[in-house]
């Protein structure tokens, strides 16, 4: 009931947005002649009743043909598109003039009304009194997206980026395997060991996926590239990231990918709001595409155009290409082939399943630390450590991310963990707590040895080296190290040359300190003005500040985008139902008979016929003698006066256009013209200056050269159409 009341209130607000001229046109069309004095609230109430009437609604719906259904579905999905959004969406399906006519016709039939919440724009929305019914009976994704049969060759479905893949990838970063050199990165990801590590990801997708993943994680400030090319992870962000469920991870990555693409296409877009819009778009996309059978590229473009409009994002072919690439690389969508022929796209089975499963279907299991130093687990590690962090990606080396994920604790992986600030106690404590069985003594002993080796040398600030007795002996006597020692501060404490750090580090390593630690407080000296790397570093920091987006910020400010709801919160209840082909409803006979009984002639008959063909007549009560349009609707041939009058009547009326047929360069052409000025009228000729739609080119045409002129509505929405949409028209052309 509340919904009804709300719909009626919306409908009435929408009606109030019409100009008087258009309002009374609509009232007269549906309610018949109205006498003066006018009382608009009464008229509105009568019109409301007319549209609430079940029989009338039934007839309105019966008159909606397949093309109408397609346009109405699009408007419903876009929520409040401008007329030009609709024109743009279907420009390849209909000639411009026809499409224009169809939209105006839907406005005249009060299926589309001026959107209440987009003041100043010629935005439309579906009639709120009919929307629920249309949703059930008319709106169909199939009509809009040319759904294909779903009987396709079955291939293994591509893997999505799951929590476990992310953990494995973060581990590669921690292990120093990720480089920002594109060539090195491509080589690494194309290598056979990588296939072994991530066997669920198709080998040819691995390089693309991981390069994209790096960029996205950098974008979200989970990973940072230092000026020396190394990548480091932010532990806080990783912890937050690895606590997201797989659905949230997918949404996050998709939203971030879309945001990057929009940001690249439109440099000054505000990142936070763009992320919000992209997040909603991602959710909407998954909801809609999930309901669709395989769809073509054209349908994909249309879907993205609709969703971009729906979520207030600009759309371009480049953006659609970028989105498509992201969807394919992230494994959310894949190509469909039929006997080897490319048939389009579909949401992958894994993505479908992900958005259907319950959160608690992601089982967790403890770690198994085996005697060969492998650490394995199945399912999710999310929240499985209680309040403690997930440290596995810092401690081990990823070996395999599959049904069972396996890591191996090695000397080097242990060193990296220590470099990230973990202590022996933390590492051993974590393994002990997270594993189902007792830690192998051998592993604990080895870690103890590695820990001792790691602490045989400490490097502070990149230049001060403190060593134990053994390393002191080596440093004191190693001839190749001497040139790099700037000063012996005291026994076992040296000042080394910063410039040559890489070389003396290597010498120390080969001399028996292969667990050489990272410099302590490395970040601090980097901010000092005299550091060689300062400028690059500052630049990087500026960039981070400029991006203004981070995972932690998203989690704080827009947690709803990560809530990983089971059914994406899109508000769509559309399905890919197939509508029955439209057939002419029987009640039209009744209307036709009523028209016949009226015995109209001349322009009256022409006008009634036009209303009938335009589906504006629903009940016989509408069939009464009255003139709704002023002047002639069309004039042709030698009727110069008629053509001139039509042109004259259209001049300066922004909601009217002229469809003019002329010979242009020996070719018959139909053009749509918005009349601006009639010049030099004489009894023989006159010049009509107008704007050609949709190119917005200005032309002056002698009326005598027009052999057909038709006057028709451009819009029922008011007089600001042309100016507001000039730019949009340019984009269409």
């Amino acid at each position, binding site marked *: 009931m509340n919904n009804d009341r709300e719909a009626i209130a919306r409908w009435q607000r929408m009606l109030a947005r019409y100009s008087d001229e258009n309002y009374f046109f609509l009232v007269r069309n549906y309610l018949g002649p109205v006498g003066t004095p006018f009382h608009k609230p009464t008229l509105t109430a009568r019109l409301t009743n007319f549209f609430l009437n079940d029989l009338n609604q039934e007839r309105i719906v019966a008159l909606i043909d397949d093309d109408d259904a397609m346009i109405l579905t699009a408007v419903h999905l876009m929520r409040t598109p401008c007329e030009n959004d609709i024109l743009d969406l279907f420009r390849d399906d209909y000639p411009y003039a026809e499409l224009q006519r169809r939209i105006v016709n839907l406005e005249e039939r009060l299926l589309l009304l001026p959107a209440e919440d987009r003041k100043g724009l010629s935005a439309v929305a579906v009639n709120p009194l009919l929307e629920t019914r249309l949703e059930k009976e008319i709106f169909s994704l199939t009509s809009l997206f040319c759904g294909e049969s779903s009987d396709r060759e079955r291939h293994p479905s591509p893997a999505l980026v799951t929590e476990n893949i992310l953990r494995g990838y973060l581990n590669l970063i921690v292990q120093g395997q990720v480089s920002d050199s594109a060539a090195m990165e491509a080589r690494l990801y194309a290598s056979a060991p990588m296939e072994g590590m991530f066997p*669920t990801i198709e080998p040819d997708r691995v390089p693309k996926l991981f390069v994209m993943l790096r960029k996205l994680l950098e974008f979200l400030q989970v990973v940072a590239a230092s000026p020396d090319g190394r990548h480091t992870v932010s532990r806080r962000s990783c912890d937050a990231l690895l606590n997201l469920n797989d659905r949230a991870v997918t949404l996050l990555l998709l939203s971030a990918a879309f945001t990057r693409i929009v940001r690249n296409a439109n440099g000054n877009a505000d990142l936070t709001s763009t992320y919000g819009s992209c997040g909603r778009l991602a959710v909407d996309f998954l909801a809609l595409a999930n309901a669709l059978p395989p769809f073509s590229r054209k349908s994909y473009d249309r879907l993205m155009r609709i969703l971009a409009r729906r979520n207030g994002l600009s759309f371009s072919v480049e953006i659609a290409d970028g989105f498509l690439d992201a969807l394919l690389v992230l494994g959310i969508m894949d190509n469909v082939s039929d006997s080897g022929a490319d048939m389009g796209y579909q949401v992958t089975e894994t993505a479908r399943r992900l958005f259907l499963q319950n959160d608690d279907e992601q089982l967790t299991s403890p770690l198994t630390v085996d005697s060969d130093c492998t650490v394995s687990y199945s399912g999710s590690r999310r929240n499985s450590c209680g309040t403690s962090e997930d440290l596995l990606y810092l401690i081990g080396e990823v070996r395999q991310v599959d*049904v*069972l994920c396996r890591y191996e604790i090695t000397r080097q992986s242990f060193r990296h963990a220590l470099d990230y600030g973990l202590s022996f106690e933390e590492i051993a404590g974590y393994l002990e707590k997270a594993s189902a069985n007792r830690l192998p003594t051998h592993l604990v002993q080895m870690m103890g*040895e590695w820990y001792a080796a790691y602490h045989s040398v400490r490097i502070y600030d990149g230049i001060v080296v403190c060593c134990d007795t053994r390393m002191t002996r080596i440093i004191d006597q190693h001839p190749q190290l001497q040139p790099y020692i700037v000063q012996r501060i005291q026994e076992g404490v040296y000042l080394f040359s910063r410039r040559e750090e890489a070389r003396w580090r290597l010498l120390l390593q080969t001399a028996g300190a292969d667990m050489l630690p990272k410099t302590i407080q490395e970040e601090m000296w980097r901010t000092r003005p005299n550091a060689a790397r300062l400028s690059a570093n500052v630049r990087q920091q500026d960039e981070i500040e400029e991006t203004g987006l981070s995972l932690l910020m998203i989690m704080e400010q827009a947690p709803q985008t990560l809530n990983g709801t089971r059914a994406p919160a899109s508000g769509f209840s559309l399905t890919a139902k197939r509508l029955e082909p439209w057939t002419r409803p029987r009640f039209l006979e009744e209307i036709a008979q009523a028209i016949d009984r009226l015995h109209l002639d001349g322009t009256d008959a022409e006008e009634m016929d036009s209303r009938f063909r335009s589906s504006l007549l629903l009940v016989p009560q509408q069939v009464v003698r009255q003139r709704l349009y002023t002047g002639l609707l069309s004039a042709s041939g030698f009727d110069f006066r008629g053509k001139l009058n039509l042109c004259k009547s259209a001049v300066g009326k922004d909601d009217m256009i002229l469809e003019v047929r002329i010979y242009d360069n020996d070719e018959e052409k139909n053009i749509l013209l918005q009349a601006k000025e009639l010049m030099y009228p004489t009894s023989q000729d006159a010049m009509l200056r107008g704007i050609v739609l949709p190119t917005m080119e200005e032309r002056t045409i002698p009326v005598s050269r027009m052999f057909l002129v038709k006057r028709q509505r451009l819009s029922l929405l008011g007089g600001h159409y042309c100016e507001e949409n000039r730019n949009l028209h340019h984009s269409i052309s």
Partner: protein
Amino acid sequence: MGDRPLIIQSDHTMLLDVHSPDAGSCRDDIIAFSELVKSPEHVHTFAISALSLWNATSAGLSVADIETRLQRWSRFDIPESVGFYIKETAGRFGTIVMTLPIDPSDESHYLLKVTIPRYAKEIQARNQLAKLLTANGDDTFLLDRYQRGEVKLQLVKLGFPVDDRIPLTHGEPVPCRLKERTGTGKSFKPRDYQLLAADALIGDGGPGTGYGTIVLPCGSGKTIVGMEIMSRLSTRTLILTTNVAAVHQWIAEIRDKTDLSADQVGEYTGEKKEIKPITVCTYQVLTWRPDKEGDFPHLRLLKDGNWGLIIYDEVHMLPAPVFKVTAELQAVFRVGLTATLIREDGREDEVFSLVGPKRFDVPWGELESKGWIAEASCHEIRIPLPAELEIPYALANKREKYRIASENPLKMDVIRELFRRHPDDFILVIGQYIDQLQQVAKEFKLPLITGTTSNAKRDELFSRFRNGKQRILVVSKVANFAIDLPDASVAIQISGTFGSRQEEAQRLGRILRPKERSSNFYSLVTRYSTEEEFAANRQKFLAEQGYSYHIEVWR
């Protein structure tokens, strides 16, 4: 589902939770179509490979059977890719069949029948294969009989297993039975797993059986498995092994545990050239040739000996020329024996194709828990490098570094301490560098066996060790394989061949014969040196078998 013991990975490996109550049944079910890769303490890894699937299908297991077994034990959904792989790969077996020619008088050819035309075209398009085959109609080919192995090998490399339906030829009969009481009067009976291993190899005696590799831990009695197979086939047998001492051991075992008479068993080595119904020879003598370009004169023994059974002991050591001849011996029953199917040259696949696929494998830990091999404790003792060697070490190249670390003189103190720690054990000191071994021998006044020690001297020293007259031996890598020293209970590895996993396992194997006392394996490693890294690599195979090293730091 949550309690099921098996996890199937997308890369066709399967992980068995050994603590599950159903682990044993599951293992019995899956071993028919997979291979054991590693078996550490908690999770054992099995791999489904093309060869393991073809073995299974050749033994009569269908794709549906395999799928049913996987579904029965799998804890999670079976990855789609695994299902596809099994169907696609296992389905290939039986599409190419090798048989005797239709014309029984044709004694120089075999027939290869290809049931799928696309495969026939693919085979013809491969030069390597086309030159070995003569088309005989659209879907059949003839091949020379001596090319049987080569054709099979090339086809397997292409991904087409050959269903070899040509029965193996039974060699000249040589009656042979295992005795119930050994020559020394002890009662004797092969153990269950030894019988199972022989069963697995011989199968039902039909096509596709009678050849293969048996993988059993060192000290678990592979020789007995060989002899069990000999007794079942009772035919002329050639046994190939790694060195003369091992030849002597085989001969002694055969005499001790079979009813074969002494004159039925011959030795074919550098020293003796006897060809008897049962002949034991070394790989070395077979691959000896007078000059680099010349022929291998003794390889004839392999080809022309009219053998009914060939046993390749330590098959992972099979040298390349023997591979070549083995390819021509596809009609002969053959068995490979090894503890570690790790070949440093990566030719494991050729062992599988030519000698035969792995037919039997059992985790080391399982035999240890049943007492069939000795319980062994592994220790890694980390020793500091003396201060005077720190700088030479720092300045050395990688190879020299390893040598400096390996020959760390402080290891001598550790050896002394270990001798003191094990006053009653029989001890082997095993090393890589002769100089170092000589120093040890000299320092402790111990006998040394190296490659240059004469066979007679080696036999004598091993014999003294076996009968308790010599408690400690210093040995080089010549003692890595095939030397049976039942009472050895302590091995001290003072240096090794870089990161060789196989060597580490074989050396541990020297002390795995079951005995009253438990065994101890010590690996001496220089602390903070490259030897630590190599040692970690060496230990991998054993770690994968469930052994773990106790680390001690020498101060």
